[in-house]
């Protein structure tokens, strides 16, 4: 029989890994972005875990410093990785590139 089962397994594994990778990185990016928002005082988190209103004086002075900046930068990095994945996908789709 000329059925190449290995090809199916390869496709499944590659699809799982690449899809999960992109989704995970994008999710982490969103998570970091909202973490930065929280640190900057755009939201508050109550003790029971629900979301409260913004603290007085948002944007907080810390909006441009330290942890907030770090989180924002990491989040942008995550989105950039996703963007690279999209570009690689376009590279794969367009036959002229290879």
């Amino acid at each position, binding site marked *: *029989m*000329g*059925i*190449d089962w290995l*090809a*199916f397994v*390869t*496709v*499944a594994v*590659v*699809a*799982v890994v*690449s*899809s*999960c990778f*992109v*989704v*995970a990185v*994008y*999710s*982490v*990016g*969103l*998570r970091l*972005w*909202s*973490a930065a*928002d*929280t640190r900057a005082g755009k*939201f508050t*988190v109550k003790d*029971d*875990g*629900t*979301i409260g209103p913004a603290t007085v004086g948002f944007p907080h002075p810390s909006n441009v410093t330290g942890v907030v900046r770090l989180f924002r930068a990491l989040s942008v990095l995550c989105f950039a990785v*996703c963007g690279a994945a*999209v570009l690689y*996908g*376009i590279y*794969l*789709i*367009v*036959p*002229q590139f290879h």
Partner: protein
Amino acid sequence: MLLGHLPAVDITLIVVLVIALALFFDFTNGFHDTANAMATPIATGAMKPKVAVTVAAVLNLVGAFLSTAVATSISHGLINEGPGGVQISPEMIFAGLIGAVVWNMITWLRGLPSSSSHALFGGLIGAAIVGAGFDSVNYLALLTVVIIPAFLSPVIAALVSFLSTRIAYRLTKRPVFPNERGGFRIGQVFTSSMVSLAHGTNDAQKTMGVITLTLIASGAQSGEEGVQFWVVVACALAIALGTYTGGWRIIRTLGSGITEIRATQGFAAEASTAATILASSHLGFALSTTQVSSGSIIGAGLGRRGSKIQWSTAGKIVIAWFITLPASAAVGAVAAGIARLGVIGLVIDAVVGAAVILGLYLWSLRKPHEQAAAIEVDVAANAVFTRKELRDMQRKKRAADVAARRAELSRERTLRRMAARKGGRR
């Protein structure tokens, strides 16, 4: 390569018929498959319906121009072509196309996503069996190209999408930070566009192959020449126009008929559709876009806790997949049988085919609400309410649900935390 070639060649009736029908098939292929890429962003509100179909149409157009590698075989080895096998005549291609188009129209009318390429293969197989007997079909190829992928592609896609959805929800879990799952909407725009572009590069090429092989068979073009430029333009425009028209019935089925899709799920589903299609087309078997996309949506539905899947709808879709090949083969066989009468048969085929297509179209216009009610309950809800009304209703209900669940969850969470502090185990 230029339009200038056209008047010089002898264009017979059959060639004209095949080209016209092939372009119409391309058109149905477009509107049948808009849903694969654009059902989820439309359902989650990531893109407005008109914007979504426009983007899809443009990307299909671009995709069609990007990929113009000549198809060496229309049937991907399903029919024993070439020396020692069957010569696929333009009449067979014509009959096969009638089968494919009619089946595409029927499934569209029922709002069922089914693979256009399987419909084309089916039509060609039916025509080949009538035209050249049962020996003309390569059954091993049928098994490996159509049947096994039909079983595996939804399963693989559902698995990929399930895991992706789980990961997405796990990583953006409430309530530690105010999550911004709305951000997944922006991601959806990109993932869906990728699926659209991939579709354009794959599917317009099929029709180009059909037309080019017909031109070669009729002697209007030599075998060495590539796809003629006017063929590329015509196919690209046909698929883009079809996509822009939008198969709204199928979009409804995929967007809200199977499960209620949210932005996170939509993003995960389209990301897995794109990943699965790219992986399959570069590493192994070409999987059907339609089946991968439906499987992904089911997987996304399974991945979110508390979401319900309409298994009856999913079942109907799966049944439609398995009927697609034999049904279009049957139509193709009948058309091929009539075509054997000669020119008269071709004319009868063309007239009857046009009448059936027109009839199905007119039927779709009559009483859309009752029609929809006969299709799906969810689809009916969509047909009766405008999108905005529906969204407001859903939003209210969702807000109530979320509030209730959040209160409950936080209580349970507190208990769990207390239990953990005491060193208890759960």
